[in-house]
């Protein structure tokens, strides 16, 4: 008798587990499926969409916002938000253009802008952790300051006349992949490994889940907060450098609005502003979905204003369905 009851128990358990798995698989795969469906539809509407030219273009477009979105994701996982990523990208674009025009070598330039990004990021971390300013306001402040400083140093003018070996970087292909996309993929893989397999990555989730519990369990909240914002600053600065090579000029207003696109990409990719939730792969796919919409709009000659509306609707739809699913489970 006891035996029967055990088997029944096991059976119902595995059944339950089976449906759980199917649901989990579906929810995990739904995002890539959405992207794939978008591509297939686009191909039927305009076969040019899958041309090598257009795809490399799409890759380059996505690369820069994708890197910024990865930066944003790290911060969102800690239950923070970083509104200064776009401004950091802008100042990095201007500084790297100025350095390169003045004849500084590429490597020194990269090192310099990484330092600038790190400083802005750690400043954000200090404002959030030490000064206890809510992340939204802290980074709104640094965003405004950094953007102001960018306009000041560049006099509000576009800086052009970059050496040709720099502008070539963006046109290179590595293993048949546009260099910018290649860099995005490397950063994405490193980022995904970091948040999954390193102590620092686990710390990000821990403080995002409950800062108090994490601290009382021995997590160094200060270093983790500095780290999250610091890396976000560095990645944004790298994105700024890449944008400069792509556009062959330093643009003081570059990256305006990127902070919001980055947040949207992260959220479409499964990150939650409540913290402790988010994935790098998801964010990259989220960035691709957004840039595919824009690219498709261009190809099909849809008014960009409508595209804007479509992106907003998409964002709300994704979050709504996510909520719906959570409520069911």
């Amino acid at each position, binding site marked *: 008798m006891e035996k029967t009851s055990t088997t029944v128990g096991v059976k119902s358990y595995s059944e339950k587990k089976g449906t759980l798995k199917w649901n989990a698989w579906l929810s995990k795969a739904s995002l890539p499926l959405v992207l794939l469906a978008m591509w297939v539809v686009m191909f039927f509407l305009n076969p040019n969409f899958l041309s090598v030219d257009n795809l490399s273009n799409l890759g380059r477009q996505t690369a820069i916002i994708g890197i910024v979105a990865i930066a944003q994701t790290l911060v969102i996982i800690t239950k923070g938000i970083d509104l200064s990523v776009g401004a950091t990208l802008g100042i990095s674009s201007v500084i790297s253009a100025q350095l390169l025009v003045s004849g500084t070598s590429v490597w020194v330039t990269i090192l310099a802008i990484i330092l600038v990004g790190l400083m802005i990021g750690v400043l954000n971390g200090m404002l959030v952790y030490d000064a206890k300013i809510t992340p939204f306001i802290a980074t709104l402040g640094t965003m405004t300051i950094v953007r102001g400083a960018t306009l000041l140093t560049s006099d509000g003018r576009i800086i052009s006349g970059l050496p040709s070996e720099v502008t070539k970087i963006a046109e290179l292909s590595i293993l048949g992949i546009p260099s910018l996309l290649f860099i995005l993929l490397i950063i994405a893989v490193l980022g995904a490994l970091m948040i999954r397999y390193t102590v620092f990555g686990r710390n990000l989730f821990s403080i995002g889940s*409950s800062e108090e519990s994490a601290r009382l369990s021995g997590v160094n909240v200060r270093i983790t907060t500095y780290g999250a914002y610091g890396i976000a600053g560095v990645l944004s600065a790298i994105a700024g450098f890449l944008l400069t090579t792509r556009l062959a000029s330093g643009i003081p207003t570059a990256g305006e609005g990127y902070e919001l696109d980055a947040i949207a990409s992260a959220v479409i990719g499964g990150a939650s502003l409540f913290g402790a939730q988010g994935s790098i792969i998801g964010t990259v796919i989220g960035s691709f979905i957004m840039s595919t919409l824009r690219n498709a709009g261009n190809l099909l000659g849809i008014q960009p204003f409508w595209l804007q509306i479509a992106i907003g609707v998409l964002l709300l739809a994704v979050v709504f369905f996510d909520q719906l699913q959570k409520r069911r489970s």
Partner: protein
Amino acid sequence: MSVTTLNGNLKEGVIIGTSLIHMDKIVKSFNGTYALKGVDFEVKPGEIHALLGENGAGKSTLIKILTGAYRPDKGKILVNGKSHSFIPVKELEQLGISVVYQDLKLAPGVSVMENVLMGNLPKKYGMVDYQKGSEMTNKALKKAGINLNPSTLVKSLKIADQEIVAIAKALSKDANVLILDEPTALLAEDDVQRLFDILRELVKKGVSIVYISHKIEEVFAICNRATVLRDGNKIWTKNVSDLSNDELIEAISGKVHRNDDVYTESQLGDEAISVQGLNHKPYYSDVSFQINKGEVVGLFGLIGAGKSELLKGVFGEMKAQSGKVKLNGEAFKPKSPSDSIKRGIGFVPEDRTTEGYLPRMPIHVNANVATYRSFSKKGFIRGGFEREHALALLEDFNVKYSSLEQHIDGLSGGNQQKVVVAKWIHPNTKVLLLDEPTAGIDVGARRDIFKISRKLADEGKSVIYCSSYLPEIMEVADRILVMSDGRITGEFDRESFDDMAIMKAAYK
């Protein structure tokens, strides 16, 4: 006076003598557990009536029934002689019943007037009539015995004045029965005296007060009668003048029998941790004790005795102002949780949901949150190792779960708490501080936590088991330290565990 019989009861609604409120054989159960098993409670005009009992004795349930938050399963409530089967919340004001909760429930960001008259602000042409409002507020404040500018923001007042504003708010509704829930919990000594003066004045004006408190001396200082509840039963109602201190304590705590089911004596080793003259005013002062390896020490005291703060002081979460701590014979200055953890101290905080676990995170992450740094290699987490570690812990602690990836939020409270305690099980952890580890969890989980505490002692570790529930401390501890009002007021070895003596020390 017309008499309504809501319950269809016959002739029950007659006016009974002089009582304002008469609760008759009130029964209330929650999911089959009885919180009140037929309790009578009566309030007479112009008296201060103490309602006493330990946590879970049924005081809150009784008050919630009296204020309409719960409906009793059985019994009836007579207010001014009128019988009710329950108190309709909307009529509470008309019935003249008003409550001041321990946390006051004031809106700190707005003025005294808006708080006192909340929901009753006088209006003129659809706008607030500030002049009339001020007059009404002044009247209420005067009745409560305080003189304040009605436009002062509540948050700018000191806590004692806020308390009185809360009382004024209650009185502004012409209450003749005022229920005060632990009114002195947040007050300093001289403010307590001031509050007592105000309460005595109120009684002269014909207000009756139901006074809920843990503090015995306050009962003798201000109350006329006392009713004691224990385990949902009423023990008695007596005139305070006929009472002795010991009689009161015994009625509240009852006889506690030591339960030896779980207890196994462990081999005592050297000193693990000692504390000398530790101070953190106003929470605790001049605290000294020492604990050996292989020992579970119960830290017993009422709520507000300073136990949590003391544990946090030892853990480095709330730095002590002065005093010495020694860990394994070496001087140790607790400065931060992460430093204390590195030295082998673990801490299970009182509030599991905000300080204990990581919500929305998988069980295996929660089980490893205190140790993943020490398991890591060159900054990389060892996922497989962590999972095995988590599985072993969950097995040891008898945790019921469906998968390691399950979020901890999905577990029952007891199983959550077991994971929170389990995360400290690691060779490095030498001293474990448990703050009310069984609060709000079921009996089975409670026993598992007892067993783990004993097991840790067997392994030569030390446990400080802090609780305001005596039976569980008597069950698990080798030794009991009693804390009252920030001081250690008693120490008992297991052979000399005596419930009355321990209780007396706790009320000292």
